[in-house]
């Protein structure tokens, strides 16, 4: 057991030595793979962040009901009663036009401008929190509320979130396509690297066969090479993505302060990081396997 382990370590060491025999060449290969993988990985992490933002903002969807400017106290009271009686509604909050104006003054710093207005341009409003958050249910409820008397306009606050969600779905598809293409590229790069290696090592392979090496023995270093190169490429991609996020977070922090919110890009989660590394390792191994299967017996016929 320990013996077999030591043997595999020995192969790994030999493979590493070969990979970095030309230091620049080895690093360049890894960098190419890393950049190729960092594109879909980076897009993925940005999408995931956008997704988080959407969920955060649309967590409690609300419907704003803006009333006609000539609505009377009695109209409002009757409407309030009907809303509270509605089974689909969890909570109703009334915001009078005076309070709305006050809030506007405070939150925007436009007090001077607003103060100079002759009369309050804002309508009375109800903020309605529905019980259900499914898009269809929300749309139905909004339409229903819009038909109530004295309601001028019913606005689904999270409508933009659904539009963004659709956009994100599109983005995820784009990432998937990009990831597939670049995975193929990674396999192709490894395929070719291993082909060249088999060519340069044909003497060793030939001799090894002649003195009793099994096919497995001859294949193993190439497979290890592919897997290791893939893994290192994955690590490079991880570093590129993580460094880019750190770099982006500083200006983003300043930007989000202007909007009085705290938004930072979350890095790749541990699970996603592990998936990235395992996936790149697997792709490298696969490229090497395909190359060995195709080239080994063609370049050096077994006998």
């Amino acid at each position, binding site marked *: 057991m320990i*013996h077999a382990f030591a043997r595999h370590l020995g192969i790994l060491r030999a493979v590493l030595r070969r990979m970095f025999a030309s230091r620049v060449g080895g690093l360049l290969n890894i960098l190419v793979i890393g950049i190729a993988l960092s594109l879909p990985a980076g897009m993925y992490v940005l999408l995931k962040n956008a997704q988080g933002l959407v969920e955060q903002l649309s967590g409690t969807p609300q419907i704003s009901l803006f009333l006609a400017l000539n609505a009377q106290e009695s109209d409002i009271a009757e409407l309030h009663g009907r809303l509270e009686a509605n089974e689909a509604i969890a909570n109703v909050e009334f915001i009078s036009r005076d309070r709305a104006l006050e809030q506007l003054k405070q939150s925007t710093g436009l007090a001077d401008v607003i103060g100079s207005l002759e009369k309050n341009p804002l309508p009375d409003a109800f903020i309605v929190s529905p019980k259900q958050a499914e898009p269809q249910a929300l749309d139905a409820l909004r339409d229903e509320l819009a038909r109530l008397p004295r309601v001028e306009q019913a606005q689904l606050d999270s409508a933009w979130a659904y539009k963004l969600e659709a956009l994100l779905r599109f983005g995820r598809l784009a990432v998937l396509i990009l990831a597939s293409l670049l995975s193929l590229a990674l396999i192709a790069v490894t395929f070719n690297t291993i082909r060249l290696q088999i060519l340069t090592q044909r*003497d060793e392979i030939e001799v090894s066969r002649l*003195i009793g090496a*099994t096919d497995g023995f001859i294949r193993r270093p190439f497979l290890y090479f592919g897997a290791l190169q893939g893994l290192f490429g994955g690590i490079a991609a991880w570093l590129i993505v993580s460094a880019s996020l750190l770099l982006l977070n500083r200006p983003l922090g300043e930007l989000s302060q202007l909007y009085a919110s705290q938004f930072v890009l979350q890095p790749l989660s541990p699970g996603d990081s592990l998936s990235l590394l395992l996936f790149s390792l697997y792709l490298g191994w696969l490229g090497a396997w395909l190359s060995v299967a195709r080239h080994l017996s063609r370049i050096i016929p077994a006998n």
Partner: protein
Amino acid sequence: MISFNQVNKRYPGGYEALKNVSFDIAEGEMVFVSGHSGAGKSTLLKLVAGIERPNSGSVLVNNQNVGALKGAALPYLRRNLGIIFQDHKLLFDRSVFDNVLLPLQICGFDHRENAKRVRAALDKVGLLKREKANPIALSGGEQQRLCIARAIVNRPSILLADEPTGNLDTEYAHEIMDIFRSFHQVGVTLLISTHDESVLQDGAVRRLALKQGELQ
């Protein structure tokens, strides 16, 4: 130990390299295969190692029918053989030491023992001091001895040597022959090809003389 029974070998071009060859070699025997260039000596040795397969007849090594052996079983046959190739097949991308190490790595022998075994083999052929050198820096005789060290490092019971004294001066040639005789003394079965009759002066050796693929 090695037994040919009516073996014929025809190469793809149609050339008959061996015709109806039969012989038996017992365990511990030292046998020379002689004949001019093109007589079929290399072909005969390759058949023993399963590098070529006979078109008809049977080749038995350790009671295994080599000609019928599956590809996956061949490596295990070859691990019991030490082979010294006519064209050396040394690897010039690594040291003398690493050349001799290769068969041990292939057999997956215990790591800590390997260095000791390699040095023992190098010692037997008098190359212990050159272990760090690249084989390209060795003289012809030294390269030949390196081939021997690589062939014996995993202590095979059968040693095949294809013209091991081929391009060597007589003095070197006799050195090499002395090494083989020492293996013979410890019970290794040896099959050595040569086109140089002078090394066979020692009349006591058994000889298989080939002429145009036929045993004389």
